[in-house]
C-alpha cells in the first residue's frame, strides 16, 4: 500500500513537468496562440490586442501557466479555435471510437503474440520462420501498411470499406465490424510482432534459469515445463510491456485513425494540427501523457502482484 501512495505522489511532479514542456512549446509559437488570427488579413491589429487582453495573453508566461493549469485540473480545457466548442466536449465525444480501436487491436495483437511467442521460444523451426515475420512487422511504416491494405482489400478487391467507422444510415453491427477490420489489423500487426518478439525473449530467458533446468533433469515433460513452470514467470514482464505499449498506441492511433478517417481522438489531433487549434493539441498531449503515467503505475503495481520477489523488496524498502 505504501508503494501505491509513493508511486502516486511521484507521478504528480512528473505530470507537472510534462505540462511545463507542453506549455512552453505552445509559448514558442511565433505569434502565440493567436497565430491563426495574425495570418488573417480581415482581423485588425486592434482586434488582436483586444483578444490578447481578453484571453489573458498579456500576462507574464508564469502567470498564464498557473491560470491555465488551475483551469485544466478543474476540467476547463478552454475552447476550440476551430468551432468554439469546449475542448473537453470535443475530446470526450471522440474517446469511444479510439477505445474501440485500441482495445480491438490490443486483443487481436495478444491473440497473435501469446501463441506465437511461446511457439517461437520452444520450437526452433517455428522460431526461424516467425522471426522473419516479426522483424518485418516491427519495421513496417504504419501509415504505409494502412495505404497498402486499403489498396488491396478496399480498392482492388472491394471486400471491406476503406475508411470511416460506419456507413451512412446503416448502423448495424456487421457494418461497424467490417469498418473496424482494416484499422484494427494495421495496429495489431505492428504491435503483435513487437509483443511476439518480447514474449519469445522473456520465455527463452526463463527457460534458461536453473530452476527450469532442474525441473527438466527431474524428468518433467516438456509440455509441463513450458506451461506450468516457465510461462507464469515469463508473463510477468510481458504484461508490463503490454500495458506500457497500450499507452503508446496513442501515437499509433494518430496515424491509423487519420489514414482510415476513423473518428477518434487521434484524427481529432491531426485535424487540430491542420487548423493550428492549440487548446485541442495541448489537451491531446496532456491526455496522452496522463494515459502513459497511469498505465505505467498500473504496470508497476501489477508486476508487483505477479512477482512475489518485488513485494519483498518493497516491504523492506530496498
Amino acid at each position, binding site marked *: 500500500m505504501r508503494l501505491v501512495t509513493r508511486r502516486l505522489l511521484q507521478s504528480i511532479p512528473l505530470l507537472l*513537468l510534462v505540462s511545463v514542456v507542453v506549455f512552453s512549446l505552445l509559448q514558442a509559437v511565433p505569434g502565440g496562440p493567436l497565430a491563426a488570427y495574425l495570418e488573417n488579413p480581415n482581423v485588425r491589429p486592434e482586434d488582436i490586442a483586444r483578444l490578447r487582453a481578453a484571453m489573458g495573453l498579456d500576462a507574464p508566461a508564469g502567470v498564464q501557466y498557473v491560470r491555465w493549469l488551475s483551469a485544466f485540473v478543474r476540467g476547463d480545457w478552454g475552447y476550440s479555435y476551430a468551432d468554439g466548442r469546449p475542448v473537453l466536449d470535443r475530446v470526450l465525444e471522440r474517446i469511444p471510437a479510439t477505445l474501440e480501436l485500441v482495445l480491438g487491436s490490443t486483443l487481436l495483437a495478444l491473440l497473435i503474440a501469446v501463441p506465437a511467442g511461446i511457439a517461437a521460444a520452444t520450437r526452433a523451426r517455428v522460431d526461424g520462420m516467425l522471426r522473419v515475420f516479426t522483424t518485418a512487422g516491427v519495421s*513496417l511504416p504504419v501509415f504505409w501498411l494502412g495505404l497498402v491494405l486499403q489498396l488491396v482489400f478496399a480498392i482492388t478487391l472491394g471486400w471491406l470499406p476503406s475508411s470511416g467507422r460506419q456507413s451512412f444510415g446503416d448502423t448495424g453491427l456487421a457494418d461497424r465490424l467490417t469498418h473496424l477490420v482494416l484499422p484494427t489489423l494495421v495496429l495489431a500487426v505492428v504491435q503483435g510482432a513487437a509483443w511476439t518478439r518480447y514474449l519469445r525473449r522473456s520465455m527463452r530467458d526463463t527457460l534458461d534459469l536453473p530452476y527450469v533446468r532442474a525441473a527438466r533433469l527431474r524428468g518433467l515433460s516438456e509440455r509441463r515445463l513450458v506451461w506450468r513452470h516457465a510461462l507464469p514467470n515469463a508473463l510477468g514482464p510481458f504484461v508490463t510491456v503490454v500495458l506500457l505499449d497500450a499507452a503508446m498506441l496513442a501515437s499509433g492511433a494518430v496515424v491509423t485513425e487519420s489514414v482510415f478517417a476513423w473518428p477518434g481522438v487521434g484524427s481529432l489531433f491531426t485535424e487540430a494540427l491542420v487548423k493550428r487549434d492549440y487548446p485541442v493539441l495541448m489537451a*491531446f498531449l496532456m491526455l496522452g501523457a496522463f494515459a*502513459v503515467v497511469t498505465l505505467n503505475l498500473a504496470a508497476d503495481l501489477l508486476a508487483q502482484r505477479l512477482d512475489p520477489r518485488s513485494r519483498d523488496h518493497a516491504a523492506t524498502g530496498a
Partner: protein
Amino acid sequence: MTQSTRTASALRASPALLFLVALVAAAVAAPALAPFAADAVDLANRRAAPSGTHWFGTDELGRDVLTRVLTGARVSLAIGLLSAIASAGVGTLVGSVAGMSRGWLDDLLMRVTDAMLAIPRLPLLMLAAAVVQPGIPALIVLVALTGWMETARVVRADVLSLSSREFIQAAHAMGATPTRVLVRHLLPAVVPTLSVATTLAIGRAILLESTMSFFGVGVQPPTASWGNMLYQAQSTMSSEPWLAVFPGLFIFATVLACNVVGDSLGHVPRRQTA
C-alpha cells in the same frame, strides 16, 4: 550463446548491412545514378505506369519516381543517420552524468527523462514541427531531441553497474579524475549497448521522418523525401498505386535492414558483468 547461432545471426545480418551500404552509396551518387534530372518535369508523360524507361513510373508532374526515390533517399537517410547519432550523443551525456553524479542531479535528469518519455513522441514531434516549420537541419534536431531518453536510461544503468566493478574503483583509487574515469573507462564499456541502441534509432528516426512528412509537417515539397512522396500519393492511390508502393517499400526495406543489423549486434555476447 553458441558459436553456430552467433554465425547464423552474423549471416542474417550481412545482406542487410550490404543493402544499407549500397543504399547509402546510391544516395550519395544519386545525381550521377538517377536516370533523369532530379526535378525534371515532363508534362507529356504524367502519371505514367512503370515501364522500361520509367522503372517506377512517373508522378502527376511527369517526374521520374525512381529518380525521386533516389534523391529522397539522401534526405531520408541523412535525417535518420544524423538524428540517431545526435540522440545517441545527448543520451550518452545525460545517462553518464546521471549515473556518475547520483544524488540530486541524477534525480533531476531522470525525472526529466521520465517526463519526456511520458509524452507521446509522434504527436509531440508533429506539434513541434507545425510550430517551428523546420528545414531539414531543424528537423534532425527535433527528431534527436525527442529520441535520447532510452539511450540515457541504458547508459545510466550501464554506468551504475560498471561503477561498482573493481577496475573502475581501482581507477578512482589511483587518483583518476571523474572525467578521465568516464572517458577512458566507462564510455568504452558502454559502446556495445550504445551501438545497438543507435542502430535501432536510425530505423525509428526514418519511420518518424516519413510519418511526419506524410502528414505534411516534415520535409516540405518540392524537396523529395520518402514520406512526402507518399503524402502526395495518398489522394491518387486507386489510379496510380505505384506512387505509393515504391517509396513505402524503400522505407520498409531500410528500416528492416537497420533492425536486422541492430538485432545481430544485440546478439554479440557482452562481457559478463557479474
